[in-house]
């Protein structure tokens, strides 16, 4: 019987890795279940998840982004170590990277999943962004440690409960808005009020509605960045998702059984229009969603809000014409667990 030492195992692993890379290049799909048991023993603890082109929650890229993220989840559930491959990625959007960070935190906590990342082949800009946003520290397993390179244009993705870190985000928004937007004191007060309302209501929604009641910790993740006079604030939770929290009629329950008819985008739009609410039978207030939109609806800002929840995508865009909002809805084939919000606020028009 051949005795394996560590050098031999490493050599074998490298060989397998090259073989797998070759298979991938040839377009053949690698099937773990069909693999040789020795290969499985030596290497198949590690599965590769590739993020193609743009990791973004935008209509063109959301399906591929969500499919990659859900692959991570299924590999983690099967007990694999996961190699995150960004070598084909050309752009990373705040909302998607926030959700990916949340997914990594949760999978590490639930399954003790180990992640790997290799900067070779990854564009310098993407590598730098992943470092600044705190994703690389998460992969290394030191998620609570601030990134090595702190950037004044970005707040790394941070997990919180209640309204932790709200101050940090508000200071970031107001500090940057003041530096670049020439805000008067009244405008500053208004900006603080609108940003506070949007974020604090989002956090409160998470606490009150997003997770099952008995879940003791109800976390959310947030990040903020500024790029070319536009502020991006991304926020997400991994709860039930907006469409699932709405009480449904009997007919709707029948239609939604087994995802016969996905209407999640319509349900999100109904929530945004205040025609549906998870608290409808308690007065149907729904003022929280109004606050979430007000930050982009205000004539001073005229921004864009995107919401991804369950299997629905919704965007409210006032950047082109502030007086006529452009709404887009999209029913998705892949589910996002929870809700991801992105506010895009121009600070100089």
């Amino acid at each position, binding site marked *: 019987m051949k005795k394996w030492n560590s050098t031999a195992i490493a050599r074998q692993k490298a060989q397998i890795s090259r073989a797998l890379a070759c298979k991938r290049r040839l377009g053949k799909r690698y099937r773990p279940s069909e693999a040789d048991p020795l290969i499985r023993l030596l290497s198949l603890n590690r599965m590769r998840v590739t993020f193609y082109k743009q990791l973004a929650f935008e209509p063109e890229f959301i399906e591929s982004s969500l499919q990659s993220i859900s692959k991570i989840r299924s590999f983690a559930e099967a007990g694999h170590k996961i190699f995150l491959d960004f070598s084909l990625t050309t752009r990373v959007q705040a909302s998607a990277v926030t959700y990916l960070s949340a997914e990594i935190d949760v999978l590490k906590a639930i399954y003790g999943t180990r992640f790997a990342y290799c900067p070779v082949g990854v564009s310098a800009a993407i590598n730098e962004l992943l470092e600044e946003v705190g994703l690389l520290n998460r992969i290394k397993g030191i998620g609570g440690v601030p990134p090595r390179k702190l950037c004044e244009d970005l707040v790394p993705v941070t997990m919180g409960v209640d309204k932790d870190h709200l101050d940090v985000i508000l200071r970031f928004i107001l500090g940057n808005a003041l530096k670049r937007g020439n805000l008067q004191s009244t405008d500053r007060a*208004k900006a603080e009020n609108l940003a506070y309302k949007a974020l604090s209501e989002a956090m409160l929604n998470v606490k009150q509605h997003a997770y099952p009641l008995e879940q003791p910790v109800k976390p959310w993740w947030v990040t903020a960045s500024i790029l070319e006079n536009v502020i991006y604030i991304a926020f997400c939770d991994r709860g039930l998702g907006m469409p699932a929290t709405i009480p449904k009629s009997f007919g709707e329950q029948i239609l939604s059984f087994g995802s016969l008819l996905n209407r999640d985008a319509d349900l999100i739009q109904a929530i945004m229009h205040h025609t549906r609410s998870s608290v409808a039978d308690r007065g149907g207030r729904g003022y929280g969603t109004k606050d979430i939109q007000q930050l982009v609806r205000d004539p001073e800002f005229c921004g864009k809000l995107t919401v991804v929840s369950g299997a629905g995508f919704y965007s409210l865009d006032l950047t082109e014409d502030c007086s006529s909002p452009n709404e887009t809805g999209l029913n998705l084939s892949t589910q996002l667990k929870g809700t991801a919000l992105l506010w895009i606020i121009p600070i100089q028009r």
Partner: protein
Amino acid sequence: MDYSDPEVTHMNRENVFTTPVSASGKKFRPSSDNCIDVAKDFSADPWGRYPADGDFNAQVFRQELLLPMFKKGKPFLVDLSGSNRYGSSFLEEAFGGLVRVEKLSDDKLNLMRVHHELLPSIADEVSYYIEEAKKQRK
């Protein structure tokens, strides 16, 4: 119990959030007889509707600061100027709740004036929540 069922979860939430406020452990008193300075007397960072949301929630504010002022039967001012951080949940529960929960009459409500130095829109928002609660009462 299956908590993934939104209806079941919803019913349970309702029970929790309508539980009467217990003593929060903190005592709040207005700094003057005819004025509540919210930032000074309560918090510059009020948040949430219910005690489960945190110490500085709207139910506590309504029951420990607003209601005692109404009981005095004299006109008073609620000055929100010390902070710009008011979410709709807090404002609706604190002021809309005066009609919806406390069932105060219009005569009583007229004793209260709400003011914000820099952002009059916040005072307008308070009036809106009170009016909306009145509509629901009818």
